[in-house]
C-alpha cells in the first residue's frame, strides 16, 4: 500500500520535472551554503588543533636571549636533555634593493610543522641538501626570479609555496645561517613543554634564556576568535535561511499534491501508508539534494578558503591549510540539515495529510483564512521572541547570551514578517481605489501564506546583509581611523639590546624631529596581568592618541607622573571610572585619567609617564623600541641609513605607511569572504522566492481565470505579477532594515564586548541600504520573471478550462 501511495506521490514529479528540479536545487543550495561555512570553520579549527597538537596545546615556549643571539650549543643542550626543541634563524635579507624576511627552519627537530614549515611542502632532501631551496609566495618568487643574475648567484633555487606569506622566504636553517651570517647562533628556539617528565627544568637547563610563555598560541586563539565569530554568525544565519528554504520547498510540494492525497485517501489508502510514503519521499529528496549541496558547498568553501587562510595568517599569524580536507563534521552536518529540515517540513505535511478533510474541495480562500488565524499565533510567537531578545541583555551576559539574543531577534523578526505584511496590505487595501487595485491587494494577501517562507528567507538574507555589512564597514572605518591615530610616528625601530638601544637613540636624536621611546614593563594592572608603557610628554600623543574618555588634564597628569591611562579592555573588565586609583603590581596606585581604544589586543595595558615607569620598574623595563617623528619624505632615507649603521633584528625598522597598507589589505581580504557569503545568501533567498512563485503560479490559475475572463489581458496579469513580487520584496526590505541594524548593534555592542572587551561604534551607510533595496527588488523581479512569462504564454484554452473543471 505504501508503495502504491509512493508511486502515486512520485508520479507528480514525472509530470512536473521542473518543480522537482526547483525543489532539489533549492534544498541543495541551502545545504551548500550551510556546508561551505561549516567546512571553512571546521578547516580552520582543525588547523589550530593540529598546530596546537604539534606544538603541544598552547604549551610551546619561545626561548629568546636578551642580546638576541642564542648560542647553538643551548639548542643542542635542550635536545640532549630530551626536549623537543626547534631553532629558528630569522632576519631581513636584501636582494637587489628589495627586502625580504628570511626565515630558516629546522625540519628534523621533531616539532613537525610547529617549526613553521609551510604545510603544502613536503620537506625532502632537496630542502636539506646544498644548495637548498627557498620557499616563497608566488609574488615573492616572481620578484626573486626577476633579480639580476649577480644578486641571485648566492641563492638557492626558488620554489613557489602558496602557504608562505608575501614578502617572506622560508628555507632550511643552514641556508639562512649562511645568508644571514649567523655563525653559531640562532634567534629563537621553540620548545614543546608537553613531554616534561624526566627532563631538566628549563630554568636550570638554560637559565639565561627568556621564556615567552604561550604568547604564540593563546593570542592566536583569542584573536582569531573575532574572525570566527564573523563566520559563525554567518553559519548561524545561513542555517536559519537554509531551514526556511527547506521548509518552504517541502511545504509547497505538499500543497501541490493536496488533490492527489485526497484522491488516494478517497480510494481507501490508509493514512499510515500515506505518511510512510511522505517520509520516504522526504528522505530520498533530502539525501539527493543533500549530496548535491555538500558537493556544491565543498566547491564554494574551496574557492573561499585560500582567502580565509591568507587572512588568518596575515592578520593573526595563525596557520590554516589553504586546502580543504573532507571532514565528516561538515559533510555530515550538511546532510543533517537537509534531512532534518526535510523531516521537520514533512511533519507539518503529515499533520495536514492526517487531518485532510476527505471530501472537501480545495478551498484556497478558506485556506488563506485559516492562515490568517495562523498569522495571529505566529505574531504572538514573534512578539514573545522579540521580547526575549530585548530582555536577554538585562539578565544574562556572556557570549552565549549574545548569540541567544541574535537567535531570538532573527527568528522573531522572521516570524513577524508575514503577519506584518498581511496587516500592512490590509491597511493599504482600505486606501485603495478601483477594482483592479483592490483585487491586486486582496490577491497578494491571499498569496502570502504560500510565499511567506520564501519571504522570511529573503528577509533573513537582507537583514544579514545589512547587519554584517554595517558591522564590517563600521569595523573598517574605526580600525582605519584608529590605525591613523595610533601609528602616528613615521618610523618604528626595534633594537637588539640595551647597548644598541642607547647607541641608536643617540644616533637618532640629531636626525629626527623627535625620538619617542616605546619602553614597557610587564606588570599586573589592578590585579590583571598586562603591560605598562612609559611615554614622554610629546604632542604626538596629545594630538593623536585615541582616547575614549579622559579628564581635561589627562596628558599633563601622565607627564607629571600621577595619572595613568588604561586600555578599553581593562577599563571595561575592571569596571573602572575616571579618578579611580589603579594599582600597578606591588607599586603605589595611580589615578585613572583616561581610557584609550586598543583593538586587537586581548590583554590589559596601561600608559604612564616615562619617568614614572623607570622609577617604578627600573631594571624590568624593556628599553628596545622607539617611534620616530620626521618629515614623511625622509623616512626611506633614514630607514636605509639606520639599517646600514646598525645590525638591527628582523623587522627592526618598520615604516608606518607599510604597516597601515598591510593591515588594510588584510582587512579587505577578510571581508572579501564576507561579501562573497553575503551574495550567496542573497542568491539562495532569491532562488527560494523563485521556487515559491513558480509553484504558486501553477496553482493560481483558478484565481486568475475569472480576472482574465473579466477582461484583464494575460500581459497585464503578468505585469501585475511582477509588480507584486517587487512590492513584496520592498516591504520585506523595509522590515529587514531595522532587523539588520539591530543585528549589527548586537554584534558590535554586545557580542564584541563580551568576546573581546571592546565596543565598536556603529556607523550607518544609507546608500548601501538603498542599493540593497534595489537588489532585493531586482532579485524578486528575476524570480517572478519566468512564472510571469509562462503566464503570458499560457494558452487561453487553459484559462477557459478552469471554468469547465470542478476542482
Amino acid at each position: 500500500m505504501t508503495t502504491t501511495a509512493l508511486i502515486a506521490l512520485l508520479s507528480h514529479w514525472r509530470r512536473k520535472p521542473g518543480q522537482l528540479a526547483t525543489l532539489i536545487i533549492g534544498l541543495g543550495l541551502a545545504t551548500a551554503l550551510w556546508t561551505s561555512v561549516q567546512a571553512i570553520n571546521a578547516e580552520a579549527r582543525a588547523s589550530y588543533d593540529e598546530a596546537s597538537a604539534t606544538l603541544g596545546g598552547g604549551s610551546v615556549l619561545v626561548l629568546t636571549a636578551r642580546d638576541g643571539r642564542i648560542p647553538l650549543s643551548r639548542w643542542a643542550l635542550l635536545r640532549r636533555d630530551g626536549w623537543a626543541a626547534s631553532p629558528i634563524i630569522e632576519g631581513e635579507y636584501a636582494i637587489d634593493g628589495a627586502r625580504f624576511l628570511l626565515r630558516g627552519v629546522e625540519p628534523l627537530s621533531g616539532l613537525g610543522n610547529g617549526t613553521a614549515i609551510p604545510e603544502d611542502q613536503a620537506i625532502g632532501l632537496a630542502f636539506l641538501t646544498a644548495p637548498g631551496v627557498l620557499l616563497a609566495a608566488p609574488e615573492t618568487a616572481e620578484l626573486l626570479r626577476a633579480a639580476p643574475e649577480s644578486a641571485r648567484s648566492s641563492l638557492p633555487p626558488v620554489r613557489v609555496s602558496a602557504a608562505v606569506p608575501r614578502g617572506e622566504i622560508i628555507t632550511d636553517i643552514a641556508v639562512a645561517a649562511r645568508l644571514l651570517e649567523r655563525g653559531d647562533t640562532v634567534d629563537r628556539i621553540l620548545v614543546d613543554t608537553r613531554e616534561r617528565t624526566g627532563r631538566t627544568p628549563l630554568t636550570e637547563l638554560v637559565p639565561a634564556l627568556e621564556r615567552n610563555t604561550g604568547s604564540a598560541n593563546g593570542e592566536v586563539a583569542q584573536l582569531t576568535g573575532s574572525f570566527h565569530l564573523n563566520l559563525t554568525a554567518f553559519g548561524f544565519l545561513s542555517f536559519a535561511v537554509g531551514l526556511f528554504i527547506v521548509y518552504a520547498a517541502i511545504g509547497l510540494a505538499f500543497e501541490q499534491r493536496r488533490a492527489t492525497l485526497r484522491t488516494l485517501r478517497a480510494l481507501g489508502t490508509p493514512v499510515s501508508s500515506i505518511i510512510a510514503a511522505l517520509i520516504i519521499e522526504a528522505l530520498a529528496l533530502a539525501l539527493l539534494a543533500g549530496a548535491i549541496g555538500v558537493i556544491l558547498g565543498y566547491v564554494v568553501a574551496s574557492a573561499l578558503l585560500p582567502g580565509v587562510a591568507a587572512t588568518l595568517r596575515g592578520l593573526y599569524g595563525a596557520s590554516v591549510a589553504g586546502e580543504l580536507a573532507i571532514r565528516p563534521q561538515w559533510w555530515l552536518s550538511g546532510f543533517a540539515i537537509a534531512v532534518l529540515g526535510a523531516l521537520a517540513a514533512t511533519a507539518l505535511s503529515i499533520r495536514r495529510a492526517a487531518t485532510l478533510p476527505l471530501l472537501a474541495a480545495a478551498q484556497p480562500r478558506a485556506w488563506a483564512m485559516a492562515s490568517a488565524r495562523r498569522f495571529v499565533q505566529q505574531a504572538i510567537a514573534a512578539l514573545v521572541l522579540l521580547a526575549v531578545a530585548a530582555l536577554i541583555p538585562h539578565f544574562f551576559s556572556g557570549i552565549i547570551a549574545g548569540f541567544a539574543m541574535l537567535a531570538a531577534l532573527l527568528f522573531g523578526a522572521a516570524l513577524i514578517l508575514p503577519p506584518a505584511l498581511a496587516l500592512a496590505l490590509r491597511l493599504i487595501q482600505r486606501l485603495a481605489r478601483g477594482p483592479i487595485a483592490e483585487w491586486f491587494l486582496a490577491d497578494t494577501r491571499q498569496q502570502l501564506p504560500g510565499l511567506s517562507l520564501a519571504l522570511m528567507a529573503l528577509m533573513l538574507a537582507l537583514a544579514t546583509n545589512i547587519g554584517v555589512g554595517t558591522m564590517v564597514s563600521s569595523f573598517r572605518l574605526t580600525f582605519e581611523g584608529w590605525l591613523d591615530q595610533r601609528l602616528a610616528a613615521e618610523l618604528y625601530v626595534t633594537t637588539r639590546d640595551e647597548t644598541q638601544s642607547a647607541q641608536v637613540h643617540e644616533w637618532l636624536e640629531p636626525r629626527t624631529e623627535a625620538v619617542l621611546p616605546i619602553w614597557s614593563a610587564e606588570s599586573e594592572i589592578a590585579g590583571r596581568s598586562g603591560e605598562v608603557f612609559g611615554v614622554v610628554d610629546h604632542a604626538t600623543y596629545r594630538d593623536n592618541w585615541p582616547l575614549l574618555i579622559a579628564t581635561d588634564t589627562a596628558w599633563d597628569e601622565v607627564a607629571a607622573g600621577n595619572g595613568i591611562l588604561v586600555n578599553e579592555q581593562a577599563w571595561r573588565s575592571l569596571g573602572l571610572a575616571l579618578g579611580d586609583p589603579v594599582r600597578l603590581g606591588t607599586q603605589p596606585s595611580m589615578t585613572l585619567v583616561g581610557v584609550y581604544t586598543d583593538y586587537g589586543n586581548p590583554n590589559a595595558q596601561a600608559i604612564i609617564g616615562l619617568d614614572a615607569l623607570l622609577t617604578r620598574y627600573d631594571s624590568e623595563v624593556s628599553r628596545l623600541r622607539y617611534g620616530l617623528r620626521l618629515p614623511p619624505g625622509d623616512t626611506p632615507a633614514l630607514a636605509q641609513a639606520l639599517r646600514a649603521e646598525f645590525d638591527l633584528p628582523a623587522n627592526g625598522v618598520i615604516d608606518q605607511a607599510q604597516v597601515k597598507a598591510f593591515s588594510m589589505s588584510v582587512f579587505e581580504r577578510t571581508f572579501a569572504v564576507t561579501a562573497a557569503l553575503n551574495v550567496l545568501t542573497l542568491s539562495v533567498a532569491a532562488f527560494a522566492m523563485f521556487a515559491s512563485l513558480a509553484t504558486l503560479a501553477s496553482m493560481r490559475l483558478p484565481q486568475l481565470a475569472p480576472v482574465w475572463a473579466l477582461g484583464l489581458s494575460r500581459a497585464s496579469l503578468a505585469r501585475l505579477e511582477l509588480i507584486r513580487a517587487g512590492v513584496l520584496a520592498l516591504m520585506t526590505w523595509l522590515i529587514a532594515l531595522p532587523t539588520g541594524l539591530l543585528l549589527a548593534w548586537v554584534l558590535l555592542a554586545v557580542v564584541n564586548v563580551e568576546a573581546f572587551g571592546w565596543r565598536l561604534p556603529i556607523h550607518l551607510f544609507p546608500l548601501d541600504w538603498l542599493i540593497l533595496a534595489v537588489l532585493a527588488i531586482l532579485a524578486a523581479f528575476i524570480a517572478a520573471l519566468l512564472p510571469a512569462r509562462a503566464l503570458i504564454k499560457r494558452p487561453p484554452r487553459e484559462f477557459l478550462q478552469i471554468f469547465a473543471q470542478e476542482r
Partner: protein
Amino acid sequence: MIRITTLFLIALTLHAAPAAGQGFAGLGTEVAGFATPQPAPQFDFPADHGAHPDYRIEWWYLTAVLEDADGTPYGAQWTLFRSALEPSDQQGWSSPQLWMGHAAVTTPSAHYHAERLARGGLGVAGVDAEPFQAYIDEWSMRSARERLPATADSLAALDLSARGDGFSYTLALDANGPLVFHGADGFSVKSAGGQASYYYSQPFYSVSGMLDLPGGEVAVTGQAWLDREYSSQPLSETQLGWDWVSFHLDSGEKLMGFQLRQSDGSVYTSASWITPEGQLTAFEDGQLNMTALETTEVAGRQVPVRWRVELPARGVDVEIAAVNRQSWMPTLFSYWEGPVSISGSHGGRGYLEMTGYGE
C-alpha cells in the same frame, strides 16, 4: 647485517617513487665520491667503533631478547643510523651527515616505537669512538668503562637508554664473548655482483635493566646482539628487500642469517654460525634456507610472521614465530622488527627483521 636499513634513507625522498630496481629505501642507487668496502679489511679499534663519514651509510644496531620474572617475553631495539649526503664531515649547519634513531619495545600484546632525526655537526646526534658513545637527543648507548678491565674492548660493556611515547628503558649490557666478523673477516658480500659492506657484531651480551611501560616498570633480563655495519652501496639494484634473523640458541651458539629478495624472484643468502667461544663460520649464498610459513596483515600489508629456517651444514631446522605479530615500525622508512621464539632442532630466542614488504 643488513640492517641496512632503513634509513637510508632519507635518501628515499630523493626518489619520491622508488622505481623498481632501486631497492628498498633507495639503497640500491649508485653513489659517487664515497669510499667503498674492500676485501681483507684491517679494523682499527676503538676508532672503527666510531663513525666513518667517508661511507654513505652506517649503523649501530642493537636488539635485545628479554623476559621478566614471570617469563613473559619482551624485545627491545636501539638503533642509530648515519646517512651521509656527501662524503665529508664538518661542524655546524653545513654538516652533510644525517642521523636517525629508532627505538622500540615489544611485548606480546603491544609494540612501542619512537624515531628521532637530527643532522650532524651540532652535538645533537653522533658517535664518539673513545670513550665510546652513540647518541641522538637523550637516547644514548655508551661504553660502561667502569665495569671493564682497562684493556677490554670498549663495546664489551654498554649502558643503553631510550624513550618515546608510552615507553622508556635503561639497560646494562655486558659481553661474555669477543667481537665476531662476518663474511671474510668482516667483509660481507651482499650480492652476486659483489656489493659488500663492512660488518661485525658483538652477539654475546647478557642484559639486565628496566622497561618503563604504561602498565608500570618491568625488571628484565636477557641477551642482546649489537651489529656494526657500514658501506656505501650495500644492495644490488635488483634487490628489493630482505629478511634477517639473529638467533641466541639455548646451546650457547649464535646464528645470523639473511636473504635478500631479488626482483626475479630468487634470493641471495648469507649466514654466520658462531660458537659460544666466538668462532665464526661464514656460509655463502645458497646454504641458508628461509621459508615463509604464514603471513599476517600488518599495517595493511601481508608480512610473514612464521618462518622455517634451515642451515643443513649445522643441522639447523627450526621454526620461528613472532612474539608479537604486529611489531611494525611505522617510521620514515617502515619495516617489521621484533623478537621471535625458536623451536625445532634448536630452541632459543632471536630477532627478525623484514623490509620491502608491500612498499
